[in-house]
C-alpha cells in the first residue's frame, strides 16, 4: 500500500486524554480505507503524547504522526492548522476526517481554507460513491430534519467533520501500526492565544451511555428531579438544546444535531417537544419512552412508549416507584 494518499484522521487530545470521537472517526476511516485499499494516517499533536500515539496505532491507524512540542500543549486553531497543513503536504491524503468537537470544528474550518479543500460539516454518515470513489457525507441541516448528501467538487483533500457518537469505537488490534515523530517548526511567537485556565470534568458521555434520562423545557427549569431519576435508574443525564442555551445545563449534555447522538439501549425523554434537531439524536436508541403533557407532541412519533402527563408530577412518582423495595423495583 502506498503511504501517500489514503485517509488522514486528526486525533484530538486534551490534557493527556484522547477524545473518544477521534477514535470513532479513526475506526470509520479504517473501514473506508480497507474498502479502497489505502492507508490510514493518524495525526496527534500535544506535549508528551507518545502513549496516546501508540494507542492510536492500535485503533486503526497504519501510521501515526506525532507532533510533540510544548507549543502544542494546548489547542490553538492557528498553531494546529499550521502543523497539520505541514503533515498534509507530505502525506497528500485523499480524505481528511475530524471529530466534530468544539476544537475539531474550529480546526476544520481554518484548515479547509488553508488547504483550499472542500469541507462537509457535522456529517452523520460517510460513504464512498460507486464508480467515482468520492467521499459522500450526509450533512444534517435546517434543524436536523433534512439531510443533504454532499461531496467535495474542488480542492484536495476531501474534508469532513463527524458528529460525535454516530460511529462505533473500534476494537483495539493486537498488532499496531507505526508511530513517527513529526518535527514541529513553530516559534513561541506563533502562539497568539494563551490558555490561562482550564476545567474539565469527565463523566460517561451521553453518547456512550447504555441508559439516558433526557430533560427538556417541559421540566420547567427544575432539573433536580430528572437528575435524580437518572441517578436512581443508573442512567446518564442529558438535555435538549434550549436548556443548555438557557445556561441550566452544560452544552456537553445536549442531545441532537448540535450535540451528541445517543447509542443507548434505553432513553427516557421527559418534557421534550421533539423538534427534528432533537429526535435526530435518538435514531440509534433501542427503546424510547417519552413523557409529555401535550398528547399531540411530536416526540410521541419517535417513542416506543408514550405517557401523556406533566413531567413535574410523573417524575417524582416514577422515582418513588423505581426506588420502592419489593415493588416493580429491581
Amino acid at each position: 500500500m502506498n503511504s501517500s494518499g489514503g485517509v488522514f484522521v486528526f486525533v484530538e487530545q486534551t490534557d493527556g486524554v484522547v477524545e473518544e470521537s477521534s477514535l470513532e472517526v479513526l475506526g470509520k476511516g479504517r473501514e473506508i480505507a480497507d474498502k479502497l485499499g489505502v492507508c490510514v494516517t493518524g495525526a496527534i499533536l500535544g506535549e508528551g503524547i507518545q502513549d496516546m500515539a501508540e494507542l492510536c496505532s492500535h485503533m486503526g491507524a497504519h501510521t501515526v504522526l506525532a507532533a510533540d512540542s510544548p507549543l502544542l500543549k494546548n489547542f490553538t486553531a492557528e498553531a494546529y492548522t499550521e502543523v497539520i497543513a505541514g503533515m498534509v503536504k507530505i502525506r497528500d491524503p485523499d480524505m481528511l476526517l475530524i471529530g466534530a468537537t468544539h476544537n475539531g470544528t474550529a480546526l476544520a474550518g481554518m484548515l479547509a481554507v488553508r488547504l483550499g479543500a472542500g469541507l462537509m460539516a457535522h456529517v452523520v454518515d460517510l460513504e464512498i460513491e460507486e464508480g467515482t470513489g468520492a467521499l459522500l457525507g450526509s450533512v444534517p441541516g435546517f434543524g436536523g430534519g433534512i439531510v443533504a448528501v454532499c461531496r467535495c467538487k474542488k480542492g484536495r483533500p476531501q474534508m469532513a467533520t463527524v458528529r460525535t457518537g454516530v460511529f462505533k469505537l473500534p476494537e483495539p488490534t493486537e498488532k499496531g501500526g507505526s508511530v513517527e515523530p513529526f518535527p514541529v517548526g513553530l516559534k513561541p511567537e506563533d502562539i497568539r492565544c494563551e490558555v490561562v485556565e482550564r476545567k474539565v470534568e469527565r463523566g460517561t458521555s451521553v453518547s456512550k451511555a447504555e441508559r439516558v434520562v433526557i430533560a427538556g423545557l417541559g421540566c420547567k427549569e427544575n432539573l433536580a428531579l430528572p437528575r435524580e431519576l437518572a441517578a436512581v435508574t443508573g442512567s446518564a443525564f442529558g438535555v435538549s438544546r434550549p436548556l443548555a442555551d438557557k445556561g441550566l445545563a452544560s452544552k456537553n449534555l445536549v442531545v441532537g444535531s448540535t450535540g451528541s447522538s445517543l447509542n443507548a439501549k434505553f432513553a427516557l425523554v421527559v418534557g421534550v417537544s421533539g423538534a427534528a434537531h432533537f429526535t435526530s439524536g435518538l435514531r440509534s436508541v433501542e427503546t424510547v419512552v417519552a413523557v409529555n403533557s401535550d398528547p399531540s407532541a411530536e416526540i410521541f412519533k419517535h417513542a416506543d412508549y408514550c405517557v401523556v402527563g406533566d413531567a413535574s408530577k410523573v417524575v417524582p412518582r416514577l422515582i418513588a416507584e423505581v426506588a420502592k423495595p419489593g415493588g416493580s423495583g429491581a
Partner: protein
Amino acid sequence: MKQIVCLKVTPKLEQIKFDEQKKTIVREGVENEINDADKNALEAALKLKDAAGGSVVVLSMGPPSFEPFLKLAIAMGADDAVLLSDRAFAGADTYATSRVLAAGIQKLAPFDIVYCGEASVDGSTEQVPPSVAGWLGISHVSYVSQLSVVGEKVRARREITDGHEVVDAKTPVLVSVQLGCNSPRFPDFRRKRWAEKEFKLTVFSMQDLGFVPADVGLEGSHTEVTGLSRMRSPERRREFIEGTEEEIVKRLGQIVNGARVGELVRN
C-alpha cells in the same frame, strides 16, 4: 477599539417546509430574522463598546432585502452597516461564503475584534467563523460565552468537551459567540427612526471586493449537494400507556426496570 460583527439573516425554522417530491426546501413565504447567535455576538460587541469605547460595524452577505435587518442592528447600537451583495454570491458553501465575508472585513481594516455567532440556525455547519479567521490569517477563539479586555489582550471563556477554558488572545482576533450567552438589547426607538429615515447602508459588490465569478457563490464553492432527503427515523411502537396515574407509573416503572436489568426486548 474597532469591532466588526458578521450577521446572517436566516429563515424562521418553524416555517420551513420540505417538498418531498422535488426534494427541495420551500422558502417561499417564509419570514426572515437575524440569526439568534449573531444577535448574541452583536450584544457582546456592544457591551465591550459600552465599557471601552470605539465603534461597532455590522456586516452581512445577502440580497438588498436584508437592509431592514442591518438597520435593526443600527437601532440596537451599531455605528455602521455594510452589505455584501451581488447575484454572483448566491449558492455559496462555507468556503465561498467565508471568502466573501473575509474580503468585506478586510475592506474595513484595521480592526481589533471580529465576531460571528457560533452557528446559523439553517445551515448549522459552524464552519464560517473558523474559515473567515483562516482567510484573514488571524487567530480564532470559538464557542465564547464571556468576553473582556485585559490590557492589550482579549480574555475569553470558551466551552470545550466536558468543560471550559479561559483564553487570552492577542488582537486582531475573531471570536465566535455562544447562542444564549447574553440577552440582546432592544432597538432604541430614536435610533430606529434615524436608521430608517437617514442612515445610508454601504453596499459592496463582487467587483468592489476584487473577485471574479469563479471565486464566489455556487461556482466558488468547494462542496456540492447531490441530493436532499428527510432524515429517516426508525419505526417506533408508539404505544400510549393509559390508565389511572398509579397504573401508568407502575407500568412505566416496569419498563424502566426492564431496561435496567437488560430484559427489555424491542419488537
